[in-house]
């Protein structure tokens, strides 16, 4: 194996459209994996902070309530929405990974499954964002 393998790109007769179905790198397969790592790390670091803030119930009701009040601030509220979005993506893509690993047709349908979970994500996040941000909107723009 000393001869260099010709890259698919250098043979001009294979168009981009055909590569679209076969390439993993730089396409849906890779980017969904990148997003899975980023959302996973993000969630894990939040989990550390969240166990610590909950542990304040063992200190005093006052100290717990004080820290939990920061979660009710409109700006932090938007961060929470981001966290929920990250966790929901990680959960849905995790189910997609399980389908790829254990379902015989999974690897073949991995791209379609990604677009399905993106659609589910949007359908859940739109009403989710409404209910999560409702109070902050009322506080900031009157009403309450």
């Amino acid at each position, binding site marked *: 194996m000393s001869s260099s393998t010709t890259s698919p790109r250098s043979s001009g007769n294979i168009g981009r459209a055909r590569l679209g179905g076969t390439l993993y790198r730089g396409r849906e397969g890779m980017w969904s994996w990148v997003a899975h790592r980023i959302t996973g790390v993000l969630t894990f670091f939040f989990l550390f902070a969240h166990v*610590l803030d909950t542990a304040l119930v*063992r200190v005093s*009701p006052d100290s717990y309530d004080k820290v939990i009040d920061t979660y009710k601030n409109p700006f932090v509220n938007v961060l929470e929405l981001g966290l929920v979005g990250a*966790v929901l993506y990680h*959960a849905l893509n995790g189910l997609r990974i*399980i389908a790829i690993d254990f379902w015989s047709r999974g690897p073949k349908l991995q791209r379609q499954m990604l677009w399905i979970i993106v659609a589910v994500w949007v359908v859940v996040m739109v009403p989710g964002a409404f209910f*999560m941000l409702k109070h902050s909107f009322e506080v900031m723009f009157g009403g309450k």
Partner: protein
Amino acid sequence: MTAIESPRSPQRRSRGRTNTEMYAWLFMRVSGVLLVVLVLGHLFIMNILDGGVQRINFGFVAGRWASPFWQLWDLLMLWLAMLHGTNGLRTIINDYTRRDATRLWLKMALYTASALVITLGTLVIFTFDPNIN
């Protein structure tokens, strides 16, 4: 120069080899499915259901942990999420560290922090006192 085996040569199993990585891989899938239910349920109850985060305070926590069901839910979620996350970070450390020493120290820090958080969280759930102060 070390020769690279042909891709189709039969797999050689060295003696004493274990399947730890396979079990870690399997654990990610099994815990993942359980966490989908536990965590998404938790997020829905805490952030969306009647009033969301605005209604959470010490009294709310006391009301929930009065029930063994929610205690068990939170305990299971704590352990599974921490182990799932720790194993995920272990994979990431293995992927991106270049020096053996860096890899070792990052993993030591990770395991120490995880053990502390799991222990603390478990103690908080089991020793919770609604009448504190």
